[in-house]
């Protein structure tokens, strides 16, 4: 990760690689959901990869990130290891949370990834508090919060906007506007022009960009992140995108017509970066080599996850709390 704005092919190729990792991870997650290896809800990030990658490319490990239910891509882009994530999705020992959290609670504190979240918009209030902690600890890091276009209508998010501004906190809100929330077209339940207009009414600078254009995301993030680091206070980026799959793996998404999805496929982010790389000297062979390498890595993580042991059942009772932990003080339940 660097603050550089240059589009050297090597840098773009590295971002492209991260996008490939996310895409392959999500495909594998979906397949293994259907194979019965992954339980619960798997919200895939397919089609939205450019946002997480373009934003996180401009962050440092010490910067914090908070996410929502669709957090795999954010986590990988921030530097969480997809192997540990895959183990977590399978609920296996060695997963990011040792199997305690699963897909909706991926976190990697070592790279500032403070957690995906199962409750819409709760990451927003967590973010502003994390930013206050940074100030108190004298750090110049920033906090990035990813929120969906459905999530913007929850009150806590709007409170957090106000909060971030009045304390002039270093928070970047990234609204991933894929135009839908589960089966609901968000336009129909969102009054006014949308989140950018709302942010402006809090005097928070807001910009709307093509979230499927890695270069635009990267460029915008580079500028906005450096402004925030410089003390601009909170800003908001609305990244327009499209959720190429159902809400979660088991959603057939029958509520939209195939033509819409086909049209969206034309604008999906991976192909656009690929084209740029081709134009800038990367050969077809190099590209397919990279794709194969990434696919092989993800396959190996799946393999690892399949073979990994379950966490010992006793782990269910650790990491709850120090004071009044389960089974402490003669407490029992039998």
């Amino acid at each position, binding site marked *: 990760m660097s603050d550089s704005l240059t589009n050297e092919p090597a840098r773009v190729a590295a971002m492209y690689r991260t996008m490939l990792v996310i895409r392959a991870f999500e495909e594998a997650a979906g397949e293994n959901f259907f194979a019965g290896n992954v*339980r*619960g*809800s798997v919200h895939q990030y397919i089609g939205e990869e450019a946002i997480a990658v373009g934003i996180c490319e401009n962050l440092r490990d010490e910067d914090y990130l908070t996410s929502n239910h669709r957090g795999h891509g954010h986590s990988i882009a921030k530097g969480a290891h997809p192997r540990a994530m895959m183990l977590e999705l399978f*609920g*296996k020992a060695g*997963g990011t*949370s*040792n*199997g*305690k*959290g*699963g897909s*909706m*609670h991926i976190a990697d504190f070592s790279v500032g990834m403070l957690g995906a*979240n*199962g*409750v*819409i*918009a709760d990451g927003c209030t967590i973010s502003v508090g994390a930013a206050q902690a940074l100030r108190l600890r004298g750090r110049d890091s920033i906090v990035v919060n990813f929120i969906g276009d*459905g*999530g913007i*209508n*929850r*009150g*806590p998010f709007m409170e957090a906007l106000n909060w971030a501004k009045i304390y002039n906190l270093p928070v970047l809100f990234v609204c991933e506007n894929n135009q839908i*929330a*589960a*089966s*609901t077209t*968000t336009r*129909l*339940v*969102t009054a006014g022009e949308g989140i950018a207009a709302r942010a402006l009414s809090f005097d928070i600078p807001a910009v709307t960009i093509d979230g499927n254009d890695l270069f635009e995301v990267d460029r915008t993030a580079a500028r906005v992140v450096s402004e925030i680091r410089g003390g601009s206070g909170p800003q908001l980026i609305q990244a327009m995108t499209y959720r190429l799959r159902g809400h979660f793996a088991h959603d057939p998404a*029958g*509520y939209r017509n195939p033509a819409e999805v086909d049209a969206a496929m034309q604008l999906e982010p991976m192909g656009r970066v690929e084209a740029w790389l081709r134009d800038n000297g990367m050969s077809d062979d190099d590209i397919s080599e990279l794709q194969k390498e990434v696919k092989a890595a993800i396959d190996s993580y799946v393999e690892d996850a399949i073979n990994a042991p*379950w*966490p*010992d*059942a006793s*782990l*269910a*009772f650790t990491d*709850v709390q120090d004071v*009044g932990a*389960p089974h402490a003080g003669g*407490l029992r*339940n*039998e």
Partner: protein
Amino acid sequence: MSVRLMLGGCAMSEMTYAEAARLALREEMQRDPLVWALGEDLGYEGGMAGQYKGLQAEFGEDRIVDTPISESTIMGAAVGAALAGTRPIAEMRFSDFAMCAVDELVNQAAKARYMFGGQGRVPMVARMPIGIRGGIAAQHSQSPEAWYTHVPGLVVVTPSTPANNRGLLKASIRCDDPVVYMEHKGLWGLKGEVDESDDAETALGVAQTVRPGDNLTIVSWSAQVGVALEAAAQLAGDGISVEVIDLRTLWPWDRDMVMASAARTGKLLVVHEAVRVGGFGGEIAAEVAEELGIPVARLGGERIPIPFSVPLEEAYKIKADRIASRARRMLA
């Protein structure tokens, strides 16, 4: 819905717990034009487990209202709509998300009638499924029913079968009090017989003896009733006769039925999926101990967030074996 059997005046259909709820919703909306529902993804998706499938087409967008993700307002609007003369059904998806609207439920819905000296009423149903469905972890699996029993003004309902899910939901919609209606997510697919010709409600506050017995009374509710029945069957093999009572409604709970059974068997075991500490089992066990002075025991979830992974989630659950062994210990 599938096979339909005509037995005398009855029209028995086999349907799932979720389908039974849909039937009740549809019947009550047909019966009373002031009944309406609001929540996320009700129209196309049909809400959780498709319980509203087709109902928006039938009743229109003003009666099956697709909302933004605004839990506080789903609940708060329901309170306002109830005070203003309608019978809203607030769909919270999961009881976990309903925690985003506890204030509106507890400070407004539960108290408005009282604080205003009876000038208004709040005939609303707040639907918020509880329980483990498998692999949805700490923020999607909780069973906070005990909280709402502690709140004056609220009625708390926990259906356990397709038939009583229909009957209790009908009664809840017709009730003039705010009802916290807690299906169990793990039961949505459970099949059972429902008498469609019978419009009767399942009375609120009335428990059901789902297995008669003499040596021990097990009180349970929601999905845990099925597990208790399994345990009872195991114990029957050892010649131990267990009575199993399904409370169905937690507030008001059927104190008379529980006391009569416990007095007769002389032993009480309460079992619930919710965390044992601070669970509603404490209320029942304490009441019975206080009144009858007989041995009581409780089984409930460990005091841990619900974990994701299979063996960890299993470690949380109260299985039939554990119930049976606790029962044996009581009878030893």
